[in-house]
């Protein structure tokens, strides 16, 4: 028993710190992704042709390339001396391109999640729009009023299940950031393993912590979904064929 307690005292200060970093990264990236994803989705459905093209380009690039490549590009690629010299020559501070690991991690995960969230929101908006939009406009609402009062309240509800899926993915994906020396949960675990060679204990243990986080998110989002359910609609959903 005392061995277990000693072990716990040895790993917990590190893992606890790492867990905090992982939670901050997950929350931050989900928030950044939401703030990028929702406008991107709205532009893809309602925007002008040029804005649509730009939004589609963003989604395609960040959904179509590996997260690791994006992370490396933002952390190492932007810090390229040619680029920093160029930035300096046009009067920008080169530090703008040489990002601290944590900032690069937020940027990569946030941009990546934003592209996925944009697709979930777009699908939800398109599922609602049409008749609902037409009825709102027929009453005299502006397009923005219709989006805000009629389309979004319904679309965001529809987007809850795919969104919680994205949240579950993201928590686990944050583990790639150890590779640019961000001391997240997995990064800390790796450091402990490299000193103590106890991966047969550490890996299941760390995996279990991720599992708990994902289960917690699933549980919370399930509660949110139930609380926001529109009466009268769930009956159709429960129909079995």
């Amino acid at each position, binding site marked *: 028993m005392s061995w277990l307690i000693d072990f716990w005292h040895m790993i917990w200060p590190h893992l606890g710190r790492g867990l905090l970093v992982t939670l901050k990264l997950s929350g931050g990236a989900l928030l950044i992704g939401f703030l990028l994803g929702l406008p991107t989705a709205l532009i893809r459905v309602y925007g002008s042709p040029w804005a649509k093209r730009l939004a589609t380009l963003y989604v395609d690039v960040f959904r179509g390339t590996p997260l690791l490549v994006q992370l490396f590009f933002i952390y190492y690629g932007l810090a390229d001396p040619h680029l920093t010299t160029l930035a300096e020559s046009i009067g920008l501070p080169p530090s703008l391109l040489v990002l601290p690991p944590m900032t690069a991690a937020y940027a990569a995960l946030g941009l990546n999640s934003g592209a996925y969230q944009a697709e979930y929101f777009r699908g939800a908006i398109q599922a609602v729009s049409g008749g609902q939009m*037409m009825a709102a406009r027929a*009453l*005299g609402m502006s397009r923005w*009023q219709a989006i805000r*009062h009629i389309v979004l309240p319904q679309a965001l509800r529809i987007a809850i299940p795919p969104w919680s899926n994205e949240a579950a993915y993201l928590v686990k994906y944050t583990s790639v950031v150890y590779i640019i020396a961000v001391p997240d949960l997995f990064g800390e675990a790796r450091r402990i393993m490299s000193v103590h060679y106890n991966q047969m204990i550490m890996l299941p243990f760390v995996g279990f912590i991720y599992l708990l986080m994902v289960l917690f998110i699933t549980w919370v989002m399930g509660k949110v979904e139930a609380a926001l359910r529109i009466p009268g*609609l769930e009956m*159709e959903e429960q129909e079995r064929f």
Partner: protein
Amino acid sequence: MTQPIVRIEELHKRYGDNEVLKGVSLEVQKGEVVVIIGPSGTGKSTLLRCVNLLSRPDSGHVWVEGEEVTAPHVDINRIRAKVGMVFQDFNLFAHLTALKNVMAGPVWVKKMPKEEARELAMEELRRVGLADKADAYPGQLSGGQKQRVAIARALAMNPKVMLFDEPTSALDPELIGEVLAVMKDLAREHMTMLVVTHEMGFAKEVSNRIIFMEKGVIVEEGPPEQLFYNPQHRRTRQFLGKITELYGNAETG
């Protein structure tokens, strides 16, 4: 002569290769109930949607209360606010109760204070016989009830004219009556109405004028007695014959 509530002049509209409206002109006077009949795909719904510019005509003009809807830079939201519209598939706002659906226009478009809008909405729900369903969501209402709420929602804006786009076509037969009853009440109260429908009983009983449209043009128009008992065109006769076969005799409808 008084100014018509709706005036449509030489309206043309095409979707790709398909010219849906081929020069339609029409006037609706205050208090008039005009029913548009005709085979499906002949531009009746498109014509209705051109009145409040849900569909933008390629050429031609539309005026509502003398104000040109089709003029450039017109504030279309202001004009739409005085044109009520009822759709075939109701399009009630699914996340709002019946009461909030009816409050939507007054609160968000007219910026009416919530309390005042609530009273107005309750009054409109009473008018369509659904005051007891104020707190029900659309998913908890029958099709006929949904359509009556949709009518109340349009009425709450105090419209100058009501457009009905096949309001009973999506309803089970036993629910059609309650919607038609509400529409008949409206006609009795001298609401100006432009109605696309296959309900010949309603057309005969309530309308002042019937318009028979086919293939993007008005083939024939006139008072219901003329169209039903003495149609001038062969196509009108054929259509009415077929419709009676399908929907039963106009007398009983």
